[in-house]
């Protein structure tokens, strides 16, 4: 992937610049096969470094500790070989052998705490979806997007058939959120053909049918897992 763009990140004063250029493979044993993406195993905490395809730094001497790990070091040597799928595994092995965690953010919550937050947001999201279905919004979907985006946890997508209905859904959701959870959404104030309510962990999108077809958010987030909703259109079970 020869993307000739440079993104420069400067953290705390020291500047890293990663540049992707075409690089002819040299005779070094370690770089026999050209490689594709390189997964940052050590520093997955930092969201910055997820952009593995854009900024990559390698010490050309052969030691595979990416210099990006050591903060404060100027990482000026950067090159990228022609990409190929084969070397992912090779680099994984080398990382296991030589890689070490140099820096870890301390704010990382423990997995159990994160799960609690997730369930809280999930219950919030399901409640919002219920409110939307009360107002007769169509095609409500709750998507769990946490593995895809880091800035939110859940998406709720709903279709409303008229602007007053959008307004109604929006105001009901706002009221419920404020009363029960104390969350105030940032989002559109006036009803828009695409109304968005941003509750931090949960983002609610309300579309008109044409907009939904036009923007097609479900396709964009096709990898997100859909959450089952207790649908009220199902006939109640009589035992």
């Amino acid at each position, binding site marked *: 992937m020869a993307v000739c763009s440079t993104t*420069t990140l*400067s*953290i705390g004063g020291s500047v890293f610049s990663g540049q992707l250029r075409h690089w002819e493979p040299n005779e070094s044993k370690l770089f026999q096969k050209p490689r594709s993406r390189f997964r940052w195993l050590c520093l997955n905490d930092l969201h910055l470094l997820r*952009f593995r395809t854009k900024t990559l730094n390698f010490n050309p001497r052969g030691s595979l500790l990416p210099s990006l790990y050591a903060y404060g070091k100027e990482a000026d040597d950067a090159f990228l070989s022609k990409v190929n799928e084969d070397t992912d595994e090779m680099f994984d092995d080398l990382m296991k052998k030589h890689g070490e965690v140099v820096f870890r953010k301390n704010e990382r919550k423990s997995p159990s705490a994160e799960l609690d937050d997730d369930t809280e947001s999930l219950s919030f999201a399901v409640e919002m979806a219920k409110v939307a279905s009360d107002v007769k919004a169509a095609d409500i979907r709750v998507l769990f997007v946490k593995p895809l985006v880091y800035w939110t946890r859940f998406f709720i997508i709903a279709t409303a058939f008229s602007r007053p209905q959008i307004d109604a859904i929006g105001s009901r959701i706002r009221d419920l959120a404020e009363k029960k959870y104390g969350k105030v959404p*940032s989002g*559109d104030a006036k009803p*828009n053909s695409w109304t*968005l309510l*941003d509750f931090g962990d949960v983002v609610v999108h309300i579309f008109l049918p044409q907009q939904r077809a036009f923007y097609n958010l479900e396709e*964009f987030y096709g990898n997100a897992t859909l959450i089952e909703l207790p649908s009220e259109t199902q006939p109640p079970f009589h035992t």
Partner: protein
Amino acid sequence: VIGASNRRYAHIGDVIVAVIKEAVPNTPLERSEVIRAVIVRTRKELKRDNGMIIRYDDNVAVIIDQEGNPKGTRIFGTIARELRQLNFTKIVSLAPEVL
């Protein structure tokens, strides 16, 4: 720059009024059409309170309509997180990467 009287420079997150100089054929946009756009990437650095500075390689804006909905369906490239605070979560939700 919308919302700021006669400001000289706009930054990331500002809505600007612009005119189209060049248009790719077969799009619903035509040359010399006056449009509104939100700036999403600039070559001038963007500073954050925690000391992070972000500078992109290009200047990019996303065309929006009067209501603030993006005119296109997809967005290419990275978007800065600041747009979310400025109520452009729509653009952020269409972005492939948020920095």
